[in-house]
């Protein structure tokens, strides 16, 4: 087992909000969703009720391929909350479709983390309502090491 692994037991659980219902529904189904404005095609990973660019209502939900690359990361050795076991690696992942999301990288060692490392989404259930997306090294894609 690798040092970086998904942690879901006893963690602070996200509370869905007005705009994010479809996002969490997607996670429960194993789909990473983001929003795209049908009019101006602006993309959005932070759930919104109107497009940030043209302000039209109700941007549509689309399902990402779940593939992306590592944009930035940290390895935490002092846990924010006792439920988290160190080390864990919060990261910003740039989706292949363009927008960036925040998650944690799992399934590798801390010293394997490198810029532009190829990643793919993996889901882990927290409770009946919340399933969290994580990212792991993409299968079949050679990762360049620094």
């Amino acid at each position: 087992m690798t040092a970086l692994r998904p942690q879901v037991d006893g963690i602070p659980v996200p509370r869905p909000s007005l705009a994010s219902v479809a996002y969490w529904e997607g996670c429960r189904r194993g789909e990473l969703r983001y929003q795209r404005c049908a009019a101006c095609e602006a993309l959005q990973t932070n759930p919104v009720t109107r497009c940030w660019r043209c302000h039209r209502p109700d941007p549509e939900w689309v399902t990402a391929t779940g593939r992306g690359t590592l944009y930035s990361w940290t390895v935490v050795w002092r846990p924010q909350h006792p439920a988290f076991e160190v080390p864990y690696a919060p990261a910003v992942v740039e989706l292949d479709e363009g927008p960036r999301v925040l998650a944690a990288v799992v399934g590798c060692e801390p010293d394997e983390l490198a810029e532009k490392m190829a990643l793919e989404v993996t889901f882990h259930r927290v409770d009946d309502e919340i399933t969290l997306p994580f990212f792991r090294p993409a299968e079949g894609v050679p990762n360049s090491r620094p």
Partner: protein
Amino acid sequence: MPHPFTGVAIAGVHNTVQARRLPGHDSRSIALEAALGALADAGVPASDVDGVVGEFAADQVLALGLGSAVRRPTALGIPAVLDAAALVATGQCEVVLVAAGGAGLYTDRSQTAPWTRPTNELVVGYGLFTAAEFALMARRHMVRHGTTPVQLATVAATIRNNGSAHPGAVYAGRGPFAPDDILASRMVADPFHLLDCSMTSEGGCAMVLTTAERAADGPTRPVHLLGGGSEAFGPAYTIAPSWDLGADRGEGTPAGYVGRGAARRAFAMAGLGPTDVDVLELYDPFSFEIIRQLEAFGFCDDGDGGPLVESGAIAPGGRHPVTTDGGTMSYSHAGISAQQLQRVIRGVEQLRGGCAGTQVAGAEVALCSNGGAGALFTDVLLLGRERP
């Protein structure tokens, strides 16, 4: 057109005792102590206060027996000072108090401090806290520009040494530090070691602003506001803190350089540039922030902040001495906003000229900052000895 703050001055400042813990105090009580101290420093009776700005503004109108007064409880730190100055400049108030304090907030030590833990649904499940958020910004700069852990550690050692030499600092006498000492401390959120991070403490602080005329008759030398600016790229600790946020939407400056626009507006208001600044009271939640702010505010080119700090420029006697009281790493970090106002108070102290071993000789202009890239906001305030 006259300078918007030509008729305003900072007439009094005060820091209470700062300590790891202040038994017998809560945030309200220590902020009230600070308020009384600042009024005494300004030589102004509480009954003359007609405006209060800051977290406890509403309480303090009542607690100080002001009868009725303007209260502005939402602005904190530099924005609180700018709002207070605007209240005086526009004639809405004659004497405005800005007070802050934190005590008794951090009790569950199994978790990081309460103000460091985001609760937003998109980040709460990943154990993020401020050190990790700022690390995500620092990492991006290190990848892009080759900024090194030693350069980060140089910042932390410099600021902690300033605090070590400041008798009022929580960590007074706790030094000296070399960069290797910083690198030898345990890792918190890579690339930040424990000593790259701000500490937590308790304390209060306050400031009194009034008309330039009234301040000129006060017991202490008035300090003037030469320019100010604020900017944010969105809510702090809610969305992914991406260096390129904003720029990728075609908005020019990336979030990694948040504060660049604020500094430009502050310098434009002052009619000054970075070479005119004698002392930089930069907000130091994490060591990397100093490197970033030096670049964002125009003290060096993008990517050159690491070599600049390694050259000794930010140390006492250097071209750009920073955070001369030890900042949030060594002076104090009481949590919500006191440490933000303390950057401005330290700027005032430097321009008054009484900082003993950490005084920047002949300081005429001070740049103070708040915020940081990991929080997606930065505020800038320029202070001067002369009336603008």
